[in-house]
């Protein structure tokens, strides 16, 4: 086996500007798509739980199609497929001197649309896990449905779904590599480009793996903190807990 340690360390510790730009894109794409999926997913969940049969059908179909087809297919379909059909062409947008490329827009959109379907089901599980008594108590006080959701049910549901949502973002970080197929220069595509010039495949992909491991590990650490502070069953972090001082043993 040949492993060029010097090359490996150089790439790991002093990565090229292109690779760092790719790292930036990976982070921007995953955070933006996750936030969009988080918001859009809530709307889909409400529609899915709505007594309105039409809304319910639309939401159920959306979840069925998105979860039933590969993300890679969805990405190509949205960027290349829609353009080929002459329906939507994602153009580069330049604002304040920054260009927002069309393929990046399509990539983020595809990731967000995909994420929303999974988030919708997570919300639905979280909301149905809130004790029925909480709904009834809020209703009995005279709260209309949306107020009840906002003040009583969602805050409790968020705590219930904290772990699955953390899981989703972990998956999201790694799924951004799929957007490389439509030419977004995130970490994988940059690595492939360097590889085609150097053929140091083993070293380069080791470095790429380590960078992803670093990202997901940082996220894990954040989730461990969040879980400790916000997980259900604990009074919220803002509640000062009186810890009785131990009496010294005489």
């Amino acid at each position, binding site marked *: 086996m040949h492993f060029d340690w010097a090359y490996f360390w150089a790439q790991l510790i002093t990565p090229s500007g292109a690779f760092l730009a790719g790292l930036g894109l990976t982070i921007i794409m995953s955070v933006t798509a996750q936030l969009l999926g988080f918001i859009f997913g809530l709307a889909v969940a409400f529609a899915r739980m709505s007594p309105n049969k039409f809304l319910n059908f639309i939401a159920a179909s959306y979840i069925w199609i998105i979860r039933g087809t590969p993300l890679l297919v969805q990405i190509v379909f949205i960027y290349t497929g829609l353009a080929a059909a002459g329906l939507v062409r994602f153009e580069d947008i330049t604002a304040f001197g920054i260009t927002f490329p069309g393929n990046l827009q399509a990539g983020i959109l595809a990731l967000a649309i995909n994420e929303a379907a999974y988030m919708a089901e997570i919300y639905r599980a979280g909301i149905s896990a809130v004790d029925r008594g909480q709904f009834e108590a809020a209703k*009995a006080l*005279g709260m209309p449905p949306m*107020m009840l959701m906002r003040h009583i049910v969602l805050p409790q549901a968020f705590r219930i779904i904290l772990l699955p949502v953390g899981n989703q973002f972990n998956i999201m970080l790694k799924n951004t590599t799929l957007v490389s197929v439509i030419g977004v220069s995130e970490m994988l595509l940059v690595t492939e480009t360097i590889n085609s010039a150097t053929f140091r495949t083993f070293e380069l992909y080791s470095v790429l793996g380590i960078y992803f491991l670093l990202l997901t590990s940082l996220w894990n650490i954040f989730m461990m903190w969040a879980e400790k502070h916000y997980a259900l069953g604990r009074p919220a972090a803002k509640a000062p807990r009186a810890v009785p001082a131990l009496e010294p043993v005489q």
Partner: protein
Amino acid sequence: MSEDLLIEATGVEKWFGPVKVLDRVDFKVGRGEVVVLIGPSGSGKTTLLRCINHLEEVQSGRIVVNGSLIGYRERNGKLISDKERNIAVQRRDVGMVFQRFNLFANMNVLENISLAPRLLRGTAKSKAEEQARILLTRVGLPEKENAFPVELSGGQQQRVAIARALAMQPAVLLFDEPTSALDPEMVGEVLAVMRDLATSGMTMVVVTHEMGFARQVADRVVVMAEGKIIEQGAPEQIFTSPAHPKTRSLLAAVLH
């Protein structure tokens, strides 16, 4: 008609699937009256209570609370289901205390009590919290305002739940077996708060198995069996000379 009626239910029917749980029930409560509903389990007393604030929908009959028809609007002599928003407004005058307390798990005691007046009555935060503290003192828990529900005993939670219901200044308070989920040593503290409320002139409808409470505090005891009101009257009359054989067997069972 001349008497001051707060709740007037007439011909109320309710089915759970094929099971008829309320069978043409007529039920009235006057302002300031304390009515205790008793009956064997499955007799429909909790369901009747839950129909009064439309947590359960009635299939026929009508329920008028404080002058307004609950859950329905009348149009050309026909009843049509009201919007959830309007029902919510009607519920603000009807307080409810649940068997399982149902304090909001994501809020501390003070927030539990002050939330509804702030959101629904437009009370300023400081004012709502001041009222909440007064109510907490009234239920005997002034030191617990920062506690979370999980940190309280069942009896304490139920007293906070009563304070939460009172904070909306309802015209009537409904109690659904308020002591049934409590450890025996905590029943007394909750009943004491309820007794205090009754003395202060609060209109109350109480579903309970606490016959001692019914006997001492109720103005009227209503006995239900198989979805019907089979007998009602002053506690003395019900407990000493019950007319209906089912009342006699019920009392024999619970009083040993």
